[in-house]
């Protein structure tokens, strides 16, 4: 059974989330404090973490960083403010997605499904983007025999671009393909993740060769095999 870890200091909200998610068929662990997350995380090893930003003990952004140090598990931040700094800080700390309260529970479940499905289904093929080899069976990225560690979302993002090498993806298209968003709302999500991804895979993130920006439109994959 898929297990979800819900971290929120509001007990009622956490309980309600528990009801909704249990109803959707997930096993749910509830945590109320930021500093209690890691202990439970290592013992339970959840498949996805729902993480509130404002937490007692340790705030959500810090918790997110701690989780990322040990795991590439999908993390969805829950923000009450919806302010730019909050959201960007969460994404930069390694969160895959975020939901602004008050969110639609159906949409939350839908997005969680996308995150969980993507990280479980594997396509039986190898892809190339720039000078990288994407091994979808091993779920790994290889450059010159070296494996680069990516989160599942980053992997999905790279795969989406690599699958259609000629296509220029608008941010909205990426949002709906990778995050499962309906008519796109917030393209910052894409910007931040592209930047994080570039910092991991590009030799020179200032002059990207693997994920190329198409001004005014979006992004496209670099030519396979091109040297940097």
């Amino acid at each position: 059974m898929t297990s979800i870890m819900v971290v929120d200091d509001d007990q009622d909200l956490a309980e309600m989330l528990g009801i909704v998610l249990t109803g959707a068929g997930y096993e749910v662990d509830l945590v109320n404090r930021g500093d209690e997350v890691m202990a439970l995380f290592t013992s339970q090893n959840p498949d996805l973490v729902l993480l509130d930003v404002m937490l007692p003990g340790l705030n959500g952004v810090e918790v997110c960083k701690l989780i990322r140090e040990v795991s590439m598990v999908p993390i969805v931040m829950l923000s009450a403010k919806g302010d730019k700094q909050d959201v960007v800080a969460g994404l930069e700390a390694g969160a895959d997605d975020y939901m602004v309260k008050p969110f639609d529970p159906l949409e939350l479940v839908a997005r969680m499904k996308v995150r969980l499905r993507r990280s479980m289904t594997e396509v039986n093929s190898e892809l190339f983007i720039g000078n990288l080899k994407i091994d979808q069976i091993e779920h790994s990225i290889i450059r010159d025999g070296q494996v680069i560690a990516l989160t599942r979302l980053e992997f999905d993002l790279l795969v989406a671009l690599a699958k259609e090498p000629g296509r220029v993806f608008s941010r909205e298209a990426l949002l709906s393909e990778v995050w499962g968003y309906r008519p796109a709302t917030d393209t910052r999500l894409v910007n931040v993740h592209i930047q994080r991804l570039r910092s991991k895979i590009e030799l020179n993130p200032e002059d990207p060769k693997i994920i190329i920006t198409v001004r005014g439109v979006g992004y496209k994959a670099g030519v396979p095999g091109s040297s940097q």
Partner: protein
Amino acid sequence: MKTPLKAWRSSLVFRVTGTIVALSIILIWLLGSALFSRVSSGIFDEKLKLSILDAQSTARNTQIQLSFSKYQDKAALTLVFDDILALPPKTYESAAKEVAVFSFSNIEKTFKFDGTSNQLNPNSIPISLRETTRKTNTTQWERTNMVYLDGRVEPAIVVGNDLTISGVGKYEFYVIFSLAQQEKTMSLIFNYLLLAGVALTLLIGLTTYFAMRRLIAPIQDAARVAEELTKGNLDLRMDFQGEDEIASLGYSFNEMAVSLQQQISRLENLSKLQQRFVSDVSHELRTPLTTIRMASQVIFATRDSFEPTVARSAELLISQIERFESLLTDLLEVSRFDAQAAVMEIEETDLVALVKETIDYVHPSQDRMIILQAPNSPIMVDVDPRRIKRIIRNLVSNAIDHRENNNIDIRIVETENEVSIGVRDYGSGFNYTDRKMLFERFWRADSSRARSTGGTGLGLSIALEDAKLHQGEIDVWGERGKGAHFVLTIPKFAGGSIESKPISAQL
């Protein structure tokens, strides 16, 4: 470099100094010329007096000399006269002194004698003086120029007397005194006066200039500080010393700056406090709202098992929670505008694609309710796409709310620097006189009218604020029963401004 005219207009120092210098030049000129004329006439009068006395005594001595001589013929007479002319006695001030003798016309030819000393041109003696000398017996004088045969010229006084040789007749006798010495003195005095005048003028000018500068400096300082304050540099103050009027200006000015700074920082704090409050309230409201929303969704999902009234209540609950939510979102946005905390995130965006996307979002069904007229090529603009999308969404939902089953026309027209998006509906419209009120918060065209789709009443107000952030405008036309036309016009490039409007709201 400023032109003099500009300097005159813009600089008080320049103007005051100029005026004072001009006035002192006039005054010094008047005083100087009065002084000069008094001095010069005094010197001349003194010389004249001496010259007349000298001439009279010379004439007397010559008369005596002539009286003792015997004149049988012209030769003897010439000898005597030559003797007289050869060595005219010097004046005591050793200025040049010449002598001239002319015989009267009635003198016998044998005794006629005309002559001058030292090659003086006889024409140096003015004819008018010679006439009066011949007619009267008294001493006459006149000013003239001594002209020598070699071309030398000197200013002079000439004094005329008669000489009488008994048995022969009368002779005109002139003594000519050079005024060169006096002339030199006068020109020296003139030069000194001129020098004194120029020096005085300069002194007055410089004194005025520096005095004015000193007086003006604090004022300039005040102006500079005021300018800096205006720019937002609130910590700047005026420097001043002492306890005079200028110091009191400085003191009052600084007092003003302090009070201004306090007021501003108080307002800033207030604004920050309000922003914080709004942000906190939002946070506090959002969490329970999320719980309520989820709870209502759970209830709604199982409504089939409820009695019809309870089921209907669940539906109402969920729709009202949605409305509450959008109201909260809009209120937060409005408060962000009020606190001037709205942040623009400019991106290069294709406006045509943006409009199409927004229309799909607002009205996803494929019937031909909305007819879009747009260029086939993209229109790239520097905008915050989230805000522009929100404006279009507001305008389009507004049109859908009031269309009364008629189509909606949306047009995009660009010029070189601007782009307009016009949203035209043919529905209920509004009184044209109410057009300004449309953008007021919570304003309803007809307060008694039932709310159709439950807009928050803040949409147009937010749209207008969003447009203003882009230096854009929203123009509007409407008529009751004929529909409405909203036109958003924005500059295409960041930092631009609207110079013309590709679409006019007026039909």
